[in-house]
């Protein structure tokens, strides 16, 4: 893959994630997606990078804010949208909703609405890979808030003790719901430094720079797959919309004045487009077909989701045990 190809693919991947989230935000007020949704608009770069670096045979888990991770791991779009619509064709048969996505075929093993909850599960995936002798990695997406849960430390410690093929991808977007880091973590706290002290190989990455994200993720995955032990990546990033739901909420003033704007000025998609422009791409003509393809894909997904039937409660009741 040339640099140029990489950049175009990263751009395409980010656009797809952005457009899916925008479509969810656009349709949400119809009140047909009757479950909480946590959108990732602004945070696409790490996921896009991940989608290019990860292999299908790698495994991954994520959090409440998991749409982008699910898609980046290769999770099928249609079943995800259907899941958010609560339909029988949903990836979780309508039982999980937006916060509980999985696509086993794609190696995307679940998301959890409980902060920190999927972290040890991801480490357990790594344990299985190691015992089974599979040279793959287990990828664990977390937020900055999740590093306040004790289970993160317990999980990281075990991963290091066993030298497991686990990659922690931490999207530090500086907020947990409305709470800034300042009320949750000490001034000067570096998540990367903490991870290093625990024994994780740790790197800090500009989460708006998709290319930097790609190289960091690619290296971490290769290390983990090759027996190099658990890796930690901290992406500095920002969510543009409200914590939960489709709206902008900057008027609530829980962020520093200008904070959102300064991050929006470094929007990861804009940044990469600017770079591509510098290298003489004719972006408008190159991007248009990509956008169209994505649009069609999204439209189909929404149409099918809307048309699909609700699941059957009796069947759902029977499925408590395997």
């Amino acid at each position, binding site marked *: 893959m040339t640099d140029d190809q990489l950049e175009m693919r990263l751009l395409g991947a980010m656009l797809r994630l952005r457009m899916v989230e925008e479509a969810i935000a656009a349709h949400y007020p119809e009140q047909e997606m009757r479950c909480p*949704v946590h959108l990732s608009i602004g945070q696409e770069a790490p996921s896009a990078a991940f989608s290019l670096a990860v292999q299908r045979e790698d495994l991954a888990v994520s959090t409440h804010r998991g749409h982008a991770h699910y898609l980046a791991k290769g999770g099928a779009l249609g079943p995800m949208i259907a899941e958010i619509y609560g339909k029988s064709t949903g990836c979780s048969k309508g039982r999980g909703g937006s916060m509980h996505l999985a696509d086993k075929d794609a190696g995307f093993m679940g998301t959890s609405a409980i902060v920190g909850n999927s972290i040890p599960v991801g480490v357990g995936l790594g344990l299985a890979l190691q015992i089974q002798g599979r040279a793959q990695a287990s990828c664990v997406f977390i937020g900055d808030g999740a590093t306040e849960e004790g289970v993160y430390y317990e999980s990281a410690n075990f991963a290091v003790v066993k030298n497991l093929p686990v990659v922690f991808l931490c999207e530090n977007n500086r907020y947990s719901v409305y709470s800034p880091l300042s009320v949750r973590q000490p001034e000067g706290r570096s998540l990367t430094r903490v991870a290093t002290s625990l024994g994780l190989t740790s790197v800090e990455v500009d989460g708006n720079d998709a290319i930097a994200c790609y190289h960091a993720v690619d290296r971490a995955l290769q290390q983990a797959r090759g027996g190099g032990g658990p890796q930690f990546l901290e992406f500095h990033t920002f969510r543009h919309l409200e914590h939960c739901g489709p709206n902008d909420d900057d008027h609530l003033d829980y962020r520093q004045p200008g904070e959102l704007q300064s991050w929006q000025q470094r929007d990861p998609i804009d940044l990469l487009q600017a770079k591509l422009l510098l290298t003489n791409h004719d972006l408008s003509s190159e991007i248009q077909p990509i956008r169209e393809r994505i649009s069609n894909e999204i439209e189909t997904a929404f149409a099918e989701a809307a048309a699909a039937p609700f699941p059957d409660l009796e069947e759902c009741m029977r499925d408590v045990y395997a």
Partner: protein
Amino acid sequence: MPDNTIARRELTFAQAINEATHQAMAADPTVICFGLGVTDPGAIFGTTRGLEEAFGPSRVFDMPTSENAMTGVAVGAAIAGLKPLMTHQRLDFFLLAMDQLVNSAAKWHYMFGCQFNVPITIRLIIGRGWGQGPTHSQNLQAWFTHIPGLKVVMPTTPADAKQLLLASIDDPNPVLFLEHRWLHNLTDDVPEQPTHGLIGKARVARQGDDITIVASGYLTLEAIRAADYLTGVGIKCDVIDLRTLSPLDWPAIFKSVHKTGRLMAVDSGALTGSIAGEIIARVASERFADLKVAPRRLAQPDVPEPTSFGLTRGFHIRSRSIAGSALEMMGETGDVLLGQLPDPVPHDVPGDWFKGPF
């Protein structure tokens, strides 16, 4: 304090909680209040609004996402002389703190020979509807009632929310204060005067000689709706709103069952191991002779709550199933009579005001 507490005494359940907290903190400088989001713009559905401004950031503060430690912090602060009031936006998150709840909070008084009191109140909000799903709507009150040393309250009315929160904060023991999300916007009269009422007293919400319906929290409203409907067809129910789940008001239940001879216990938790079962078991073993017909319990199925709108329809106990069961206990075939008691539409919101998703 909300501006309007003096002028008009109709408050929502959420406002009642807010007022109780303001009054408790004003009356007692040892009360502190913390939890994820207590100082944020949402203010826990408005329940913690204005507290930080009124009492300052050292007594009212947000916290890291560290449920287990923060419960232990509450225990430590309590045995050193403070009265912590802690809030969780979902009961489900509190599962992370069971060690501190059971091994510390519930036992620190007893296992050190009564050297310490542990006056903690922990507010737990129970989610429901609009896709809250398997990990945001669990009703685990039965767990808490199984642990010696804990008290558990679960108000239904705004007035009781206020009174019981004040009583919980006052109580020298750890109290779990359960709030069903669907009650937050319920409006009713709330006395302004702090009324540090007793924990442990049930309320008779409707009176009747035919059937005793024991309920709590949000389900009390469904039970009342059922009872009012049943009155119209000639069946009179005692509706007992437990208010406190631990310790339970057994005299109130026994007295009613002695009168009616028919017992139905309604519970928002999963059937097996529910408090409804505890009520049936105790009445059956201690008041067997009073029972004229088989007691019944209505509770959630033993199934994690699904998320889909299509799956939550028919999942919860509503007044229709309560009334249907009551009719059967009276020897009627329920279905024919229930025409005027349809389930609300849509079934996954408490009212028009609710626009999801929280």
